[in-house]
């Protein structure tokens, strides 16, 4: 694995160029450009707030911020893994013609999603200013949960990117899975409304764990304890480990199936 890290470092310029390409293509020829990454969650939040904020008024103070925290973290995971899933297939023409380490492609997609997410965070800043909400001191640690999601997504992303080459059905299955997951991540509702019996599913859903970590920092001014951090680290390690092993095992076969 250390060898892989070194290789990524050696190919960092390629990684950088690939991310730059995606960013350029995404925002090229749109007038508002990168502003869309901020506007998108804001608009979505406004709609959701209109519909749900009265419903959960008592349980959730500052609903818009509650929602945005969940939405941004969830979108990061969903976007990065879905894009990474296509990373190998989408660059098939290139992979067949030039030798490059193949995981660079899913990895570049996840870095691309990370940058979008960082832009989206501005939305939270705007809404707090707008609502006159003062961010607690713990907010400065906001990068920690983002880093967790990033690492977790890298594992899931490279796993999916390899498997999808062999079984294209996963492409469709995963998009269904993502919408299912969005309902089990307590993005727009308080976790308490879920019946006790199934609540454990949500509480141990890695994405929810990351979201609630983020909310603790931004909304509750609370530092998540050692237990939560260990859980996050465990999820990240497991994800990276499985993704890495599966990918490495199939790396040389991939090119024959693209």
């Amino acid at each position, binding site marked *: 694995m250390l060898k892989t890290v070194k290789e990524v470092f050696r*190919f960092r*310029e*390629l990684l*950088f*160029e*690939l991310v*730059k*390409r995606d960013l*350029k*293509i995404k925002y*090229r020829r749109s007038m508002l450009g990168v502003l869309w990454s901020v506007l998108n969650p804001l608009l979505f939040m406004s709609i959701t707030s209109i519909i749900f904020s009265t419903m959960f008024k008592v349980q959730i103070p500052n609903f818009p911020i509650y929602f945005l925290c969940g939405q941004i973290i969830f979108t990061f995971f969903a976007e990065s893994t879905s894009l990474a899933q296509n990373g190998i297939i989408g*660059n098939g*023409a*290139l*992979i*067949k*013609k*030039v*030798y*490059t380490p193949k995981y660079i492609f899913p990895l570049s997609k996840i870095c691309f999603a990370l940058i979008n997410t960082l832009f989206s965070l501005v939305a939270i800043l705007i809404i707090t200013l707008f609502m006159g909400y003062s961010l607690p001191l713990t907010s400065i640690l906001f990068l920690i949960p983002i880093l967790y999601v990033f690492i977790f997504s890298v594992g899931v992303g490279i796993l999916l990117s390899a498997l999808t080459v062999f*079984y*294209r*059905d996963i492409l469709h299955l995963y998009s269904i899975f993502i919408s299912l997951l969005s309902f089990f991540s307590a993005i727009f509702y308080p976790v308490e409304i879920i019946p006790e019996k199934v609540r454990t599913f949500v509480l141990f859903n890695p994405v929810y764990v990351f979201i609630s970590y983020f909310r603790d920092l931004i909304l509750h001014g609370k530092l998540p304890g050692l237990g939560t951090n260990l859980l996050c680290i465990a999820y990240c390690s497991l994800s990276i480990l499985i993704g890495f092993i599966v990918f490495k095992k199939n790396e*040389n076969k991939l*090119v*024959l199936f693209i």
Partner: protein
Amino acid sequence: MIKDAVSLKNVSIEFNLHKENIGSFKEYIIKKIKRELVVDKFLALDDISFTIKKGEVVGILGFNGAGKSTLLKIISGILRPTKGDVRTEGMISPLIELGAGFDMELTARENIYLNGAILGYSRKFINEKFDEIVEFAEIDEFLDVPLKNYSSGMVARIGFSIATIVKPEILIIDEILSVGDYKFQRKCEDRIKNMLMGQTTVIIVSHSIEQIRSLCSQALILKKGKLIEFGEAQAICDQYMNNMD
């Protein structure tokens, strides 16, 4: 002592020809149960061994489907052999398809940096060589035009220009000298001849016997994945011509 630049030892590669493209779990399971899952193996390269010394220029001859491109892909590390061993010494610049990895939405300038990174050059290096690349490709007027508005010949010119800006230790060329107009072809040949002075090992696939005769010192013939002959270029070309009739 002259070192070996490329050496292949008993290299075979096998492809699975899925007669019907099975791409889903459901199909796979149904076919498996019905025992229709016949995978035809196809030996694209069969027990190939040879060595190329440093600085040699080797032409690969053979009919369509003889395994020429597969051989190049094995040497450049894109494919791994099913059996056998491939050894290469030094940096490889593969010209298997010009402009593989170009993004048509990006401009020529951006593509030069992207493609350079794909080939493993550093940004600093491209900055230094940028003018030279542009000049060789003769595209300075259109640098900031998206590539989708370029003609295919121009795209190929940029590709060639980037890939040959370094003096690689091993240069691999697949059928690409037939791109561009006559004038540009001459320019490409000149550049390759220039590289020969610089101790670069070159491996060329071409259907043009003339090209092989004028550029290569050694040549080999592939037929249905087997190595038929390996030797001095002129003699091999004669043999190939005679066998064609």
